[in-house]
């Protein structure tokens, strides 16, 4: 018999391998622009703007509302979802793509429309979600924006739309195209009753969204470096068979060519919009 005895009980379950390492995964991130390693919490605290080079990372639709609205907001038409009118299938059924996006993001389509307060003033605010099928506009996005405009008219609220979209949604064919006309017609009515519309263009805003509401603001503003255009850069390169100049289709390029009122840093966005609303409504 041994003259010493094990005091503690043997550990019978070894530590699972993923717990053995110190978890540093996800604490740091690399800036897409200047390649600096940034502590993620710093980035989040800075509204996802790189502290070193001021590169603006993409925000989700919800983060956008958090950035601009005073506190809570009331979402409209949250349950409105596409019924896949064309029964469209490419390499995967559109219905399956919708299902995945809904599950991943917990929203029914690519936009949140909400009423809330901005600088103490009631506004209708629409915020697009790029991660939902490229922020594309089908019947649901078109309908929700139109309803938001109609609500703004009925309740005499100013309108703010934050665009972030690849354009019209191909999987709903010509129905998507018609949404451009539908929303623009509603904006004509908003214009008639002299309610302000501020269009905020963020990275990226292209195709049918640029060619309808995004360009129709009383004031059009964009975030630094945002890609904004009608045709995508690849399509243009194929058409003209040459490389595009550096900085082509950026917010700064549009400002230079006269299509934006200002390029506004994310940290100043809320103050800028608030001052604009003061100008329009005070």
């Amino acid at each position, binding site marked *: 018999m041994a003259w010493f005895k094990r005091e503690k009980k043997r550990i019978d379950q070894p530590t699972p391998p993923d717990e053995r390492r110190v978890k540093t995964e996800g604490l740091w991130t690399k800036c897409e622009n200047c390649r600096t390693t940034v502590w993620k919490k710093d980035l989040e605290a800075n509204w996802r703007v790189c502290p070193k080079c001021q590169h603006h990372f993409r925000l989700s639709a919800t983060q956008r509302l958090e950035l601009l609205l005073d506190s809570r907001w009331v979402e409209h038409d949250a*349950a*409105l*979802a*596409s*019924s*896949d*009118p*064309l029964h*469209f*299938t*490419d*390499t995967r059924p559109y219905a399956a793509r919708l299902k995945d996006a809904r599950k991943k993001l*917990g929203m*029914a389509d690519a936009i949140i429309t909400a009423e809330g307060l901005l600088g103490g003033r009631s506004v209708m605010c629409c915020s697009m979600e790029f991660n939902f099928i490229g922020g594309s506009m*089908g*019947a*649901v996005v078109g*309908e929700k924006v*139109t309803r938001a405009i109609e609500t703004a008219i009925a309740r005499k609220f100013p309108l703010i739309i934050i665009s972030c979209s690849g354009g*019209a*949604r*191909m*999987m*709903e*064919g*010509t*129905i*998507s*195209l*018609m*949404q*451009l*006309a*539908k929303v*623009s*017609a*509603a*904006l*004509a*009515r908003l214009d*008639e009753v002299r309610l302000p519309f501020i269009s905020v263009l963020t990275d990226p805003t292209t*195709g*049918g969204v*640029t*060619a*309808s509401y*995004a*360009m*129709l603001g009383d004031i059009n503003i964009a975030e630094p470096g945002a890609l904004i*255009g*009608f*045709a995508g850069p690849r*399509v*243009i390169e194929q*058409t*003209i068979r040459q490389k595009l100049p550096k900085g*082509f289709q950026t917010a700064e390029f549009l400002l230079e*060519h*006269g*299509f934006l009122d200002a390029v506004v840093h994310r940290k100043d966005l809320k103050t800028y919009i608030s001052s604009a609303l003061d100008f329009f409504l005070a």
Partner: protein
Amino acid sequence: MKRDHRSEEIEKLEREVEDLRRLAGPEEPSGELDRLRTEVLQLRREFYEHLGAWQRTLLARHSQRPYMMDYVRLLFEDFHELHGDRAYGEDPAMIAGFAKYHGRPVVVIGQQKGRDTKQRVALNFGQAKPEGYRKALRVMHMAAKFGRPILTFVDTPGAYPGLDAEERGQAEAIARNLREMARLPVPIVVTITGEGGSGGALAIAVGDRVNMLENSIYSVISPEGCASILWRDPAKAEVAAEALRITARDLRELGIIDEIIPEPEGGAHLDHEVSAALLDRVLDRSLRDLLALTPAALLEGRYNKFRRMGQFFEAIRT
């Protein structure tokens, strides 16, 4: 392709019937032959009625298809073209002008493609630039000012996707047209005559009536473009054309267009005069209907027409 095979078969049958007739001579009783001939005609009609989306795309792009200026020549008198957008330049791909239609002063607007390479290059393949859309809007405002109806003819692969077009605000030009056309207090009749290519088509297609020629197409993206993005294979254009539902019949079912204008059997390119006459009937009726309405009723109707588009929703819980 199955359909091409069938069209060859029909042609072969037609030739055989003709041969039989010649063999039979003039004094032979022709009852049996007539029966055969009607059968072949029936087959032909069925064939053209059931053309697929891709076949119709090819017809819509046919180089001999009547273009806007053919219709102007055949249906309008005293046409005078108006040039320039008063801001940057003149875009030959978009034609605007005033004319008389059944004696009535109207404004006509539309894209123009070319028939041969030289013309096509000069007209930029019917792809308008911002100055083209701005010229169209300038002339439409003029029509509204003097209370003249607007007739537009849409036939374009799309707005020009080039560097200069982007610099001058292609998106802004299109967007502005969409908003302004929604509130022009005069009748607007739109006819899609060939290719209705996305935003570049829609920018002159917000109207009180939107009619489409039987073999024209109207789409958010070209079948080739859609195939290369979603299928990552441009060769899938045929499949994409079907999936996008771009034919006149599909769009009538989806509530996007009002009327389908019939074409001569086999396509509008086979007989420009008959095509124009068929278009004339629908165009004239559409315009007369609208002229009976007050400007307020027109605008209300136009708003509601587009407001209703795409009511395909369900409620879900997320």
